[in-house]
């Protein structure tokens, strides 16, 4: 019917179509990744730590929180030396109760990562949803949400988390407190962090909602919910990924801070922060390894995640291309 001929080949030879994996590997994003040593090292570190945390029951020499495996005589053994009483040697030494520090780090890493990821997930879901609603619906919805965000920002996140934690502690009966602690921790950190997601998503939504493809969707009769979820959301997620990564580092540190202060993970399920708190007491009496190794682990983890997030932000920024 129409003599459209946009299929005129631009070159004579047509190369074989590359496979999807090939195309992904070749994409600008992964290319930038491959060229950045910082990104690759950071990614590697984070991956190793996540794996270590996931596989901790298999890797750890023993479960440090199972009293049956403990031998008090093993206590205070320096790293890689033989214990004078039992003859056992431990990779990173033992703490005051004879727990293998390496094992406690692995289990602590687990808690730290779990809380970190879960809290960021909560903040992300909450923040993105509220941001979408505020940006798209405008009016009173937007005013209420954004002012709530503003108010929350006037408080330091840690204080907000402590507040939530304190309230939860007050409501929960004492016998359940230790079990619930982790969940409350996730809730506290998550709730203290949603604002930045909401703000960024709201801004991006304001831009997207005026674009013609949204108008096209409106005119065929799609409901606001469907438009927000299926049209706008995929287009505002780019910055969210970057923020989430950096938030993860911050959440891990926030959790460590809370645990260090004694209002976080309980000693029965210690995170890296709790271990640091425990170890701190022994630093000046000579048993430096109980503090140092958990601290180094936390440092490496937070740094790697942070560097990864930084790199991601630059890689995904279209203007820097």
């Amino acid at each position, binding site marked *: 019917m129409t003599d*459209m001929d*946009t299929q*005129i*080949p*631009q*070159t004579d030879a047509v190369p074989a179509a590359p496979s999807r994996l090939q195309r992904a590997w070749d994409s600008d994003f992964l290319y930038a990744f491959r060229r950045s040593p910082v990104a690759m090292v950071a990614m590697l570190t984070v991956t190793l730590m996540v794996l270590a945390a996931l596989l901790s029951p298999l890797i750890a020499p023993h479960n440090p929180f199972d009293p049956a495996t403990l031998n008090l005589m093993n206590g205070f053994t320096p790293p890689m030396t033989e214990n004078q009483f039992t003859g056992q040697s431990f990779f990173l030494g033992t703490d005051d109760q004879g727990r293998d520090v390496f094992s406690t780090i692995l289990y602590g890493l687990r808690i730290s990562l779990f809380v970190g990821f879960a809290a960021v997930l909560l903040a992300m879901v909450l923040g993105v949803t509220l941001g979408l609603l505020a940006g798209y619906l405008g009016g009173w919805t937007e005013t209420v949400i954004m002012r709530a965000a503003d108010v929350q920002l006037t408080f330091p996140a840690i204080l907000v988390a402590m507040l939530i934690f304190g309230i939860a502690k007050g409501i929960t009966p004492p016998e359940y407190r230790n079990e619930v602690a982790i969940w409350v921790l996730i809730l506290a950190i998550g709730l203290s962090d949603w604002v930045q997601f909401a703000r960024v998503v709201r801004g991006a939504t304001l831009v997207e909602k005026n674009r013609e493809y949204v108008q096209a969707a409106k005119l065929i009769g799609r409901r606001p919910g469907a438009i927000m979820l299926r049209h706008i959301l995929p287009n505002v997620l780019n910055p969210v990924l970057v923020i989430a990564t950096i938030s993860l580092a911050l959440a891990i540190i926030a959790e460590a801070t809370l645990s260090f202060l004694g209002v976080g993970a309980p000693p029965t399920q210690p995170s890296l922060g709790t271990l640091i708190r425990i170890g701190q007491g022994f630093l000046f009496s000579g048993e430096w390894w109980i503090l140092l190794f958990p601290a180094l682990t936390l440092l490496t983890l937070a740094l790697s995640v942070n560097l990864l997030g930084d790199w991601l932000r630059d890689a995904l920024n279209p203007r820097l291309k």
Partner: protein
Amino acid sequence: MSTPVLSVRDLVVEIPTRRGVLRPVDQVSWDIAAGEILGVVGESGAGKSMTGNAVIGLLDPPARITGGQILLSGQRIDDLPRDRLRKLRGNKIGMIFQDPLTSLNPLLTIGDQLTETILEHLDVSPTEARKRAIAALDEVGIPAAAQRIGSYPFEFSGGMRQRVVIALALCAEPDLVIADEPTTALDVSVQAQIVALLKRLCRDRGVAVMLVTHDMGVIAEAADRVAVMYAGRLAEIGPVREVLTAPRHPYTEGLMASTPLASQGRARLRQIPGAMPRLEALPEGCAFHPRCPYAQEKCRHAPGPDIASCDGHAACWFPLTNAAPLQEAGA
């Protein structure tokens, strides 16, 4: 013949990418004499803006000039160190960009921007600079210039802002003005005003103008000569009446024929099949041959024709010679 104000000779601009080196400007040559307006026309991606940026030294790295020369009044400027080039800009070369909204600093009054430019390039006192600024605004048709000199850009309409931009480009008395799509963002009536203003000012002051646009109508009315660009290369160059009514390059012919005006009364417009090739996928031989209705064997294989080795007007191995190609069948 006096020295042309601008002389571009075999200019090549390259951009290294990880997929190879691209040439958005490939062997472009032209001269612009004082008081002459050269229209540079082409579709998106043809390289016309890039050429303008190369001349004024505002190429975004990694794009860089890798060949050819640019001479301003006989002096080479493409190999100048950055600070010398910076002094040249604004003083000898003025630039008018497409979007008047972003061309002006929103935080400074137009008076401040004008006097700043004048003081930077001309050796005058601040009071004298201000007088000249008011005179410049007057000349471009801003009503009540002496009062409005203290206004901010947002207080002006689009057309007025573009006039301020023209005033800014001309206030340091340049020899060459590069106008990159100066009227594209404006309404038809405002466009007419701006084009008339540009023509008048440049004739009066003897300024050479390089007018980059995709609008053939503006070219017809404003330009003295026109250069047609395609895929980074110069396809055709010549006096505007000649090129537009009797084009020699099949691309120019196709372009003219596909404008709605040329197909008056007919149900369908003549169209050029396909699309301009991307720089990464230029065809072998002549860049236009896949879309050319007159392509022959030589066009498919012989490395790109250039104007110098062809008839001096069109970069085509078999330039059109009949005077009325637009009447050909092809609807």
